[in-house]
């Protein structure tokens, strides 16, 4: 019996039949949906300026997130690993993550760009105060967690009744 060359792809016979068909259906349905978008978007967003702004937005959002935001988050994680004691780190990491998410959600309202003098019910709150309250709640919860962990550690060290 001759040996197959090492580079030849082996047919994948390990997948159950239902999965093979599920994958085919998903890829076919997904491709159809993407094609629908590729046809529908330019034929409905007909203004060339709108189309240009759409493409600019998508590129900027992509680059800002993957080239600026994510590396910044990863770098912050490395700094935390280096400079923050291990017992505080998980809570600090979690609280920073929640903070970042809340800031991203609140940012458009914080700028107030959507306010209009004839529409007092649009963006009716003080969002600086709102964000301060939200972050206050998050960091209070974080402090409580750290305090609870510290107390538990203390008890573990001193098991006397």
């Amino acid at each position, binding site marked *: 019996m001759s040996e197959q060359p090492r580079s030849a792809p082996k047919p994948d016979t390990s*997948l159950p039949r239902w*999965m093979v068909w*599920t*994958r*085919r259906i*998903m*890829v076919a349905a*997904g491709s159809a*949906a*993407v094609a629908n*978008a590729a046809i529908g978007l330019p034929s*409905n*967003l007909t203004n060339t300026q*709108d*189309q240009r*702004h*759409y493409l600019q*937005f*998508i*590129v900027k*959002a*992509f680059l800002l*997130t*993957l080239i600026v935001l*994510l*590396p910044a*988050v*990863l770098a912050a*994680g490395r700094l935390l*690993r280096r400079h923050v004691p*291990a*017992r505080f*780190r*998980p809570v600090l*990491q*979690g609280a920073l*993550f*929640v903070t970042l*998410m*809340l800031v*991203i*959600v609140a940012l458009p*309202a914080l700028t107030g*760009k*959507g*306010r*209009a003098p*004839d*529409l*007092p*019910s*649009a*963006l*009716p*709150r003080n969002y600086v*105060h*709102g*964000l301060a309250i*939200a972050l206050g*709640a998050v960091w209070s919860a974080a402090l409580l967690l750290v305090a609870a962990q510290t107390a538990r550690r203390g008890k573990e060290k001193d098991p006397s009744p």
Partner: protein
Amino acid sequence: MDPLVRPRPGPLKRMGKAFNSRLRSPRLTSQVGLMLGVAFGVCFVTGFLSHAIQHPPSWFYWPSRPVDLYRVTQGLHVATGLASIPLLAVKLWSVYPRLFSWPALRDPVKVIERVSVLVLVAVSLLQVLTGVLNIARWYSAMGFFFTVAHYWSAWAVIGSLLVHLGVKLPVVRRALTAKVRPVPATGSLTRRGLLAAMGAASAAISVFTIGETFRPFAAISVLAPRDPRVGSQGVPVNQSAVGAGVISAATHALYRLEVIGPARTLRLTVADLNALSQSTSDLPITCVEGWSAGATWSGVRLRDLVTAVGGDEGSRVTVTSLQQGSRYASSVVDPPHARDPLTLLALRLNGETLDLDHGYPCRLIAPNRPGVLQTKWLQRVVVES
């Protein structure tokens, strides 16, 4: 050597290794990916419903009851979209080093997968960011018509998600059914801790924004773009009379509401409308931007006017506003809504004459419809048999 299967270039390899947390694993990526897939699925279905109600395909039917159904679906759409932001962030973080993996294009399946991932990431970011900008009414930051772009991009997201999941299904299955690999303790977040932080972020976003549609949370939703308690006559407004340029026409002494039907045409003054049989409906006004507010409306039943001009239970009604040049200046009221006894040409809101910003002298209010179809400042009602 085939350029597509050459080893990774040096700088990319170094970048890929530079941020290599041990928390990353196919299991974590699969878990978060599935949650994100469910969230995007909810957004797609509820978004499609909202679009279909406004631009109904021939096969589409939307009932007038339950009255709060659209309030729930659109509230869910915006709330789920906001809550998915931490999921998307963790998902991107979990696969970030793979951006630097090489070769990228080993075989056709890889090519499809890579292209679908590129589309998925780019359009997911667009959807989430434009959604956040839209509810905060910061339209100028987009520079394109949000509604059209958001709707068609949703097809690209859901399509590329299906392709991606289809390609990755064996990996996902293996990752979720395999024995859990213990992550060496590093003092940082554990896998469970990361998922808890992600859940906490989604919960915090929800609590601090959901009050724009879920009134019991209005007082604590300090980041909600709307407060259902704030607005003229206690109800928020999305388009003012000044912005619509209708003040003069709406307050003119010669104002008449024209009701055109198969049998006759009526021209009604505000006094005529007030002299007709009046009804009261408790209905929410639900904005496509996700906020909603319940209110008590009083006025003339639409079906009474339909009957008065020779229409019947199967009549379709088109209402037109005094507002000029707006894509929302008229709307179609299909028979289920037109014959519903709760559907009114409202003259009063919460016991007072309608404020100009709420559509004085007369506006449509019907159950289970988006706010953009609750046409304000009515000048014409056309009843078709």
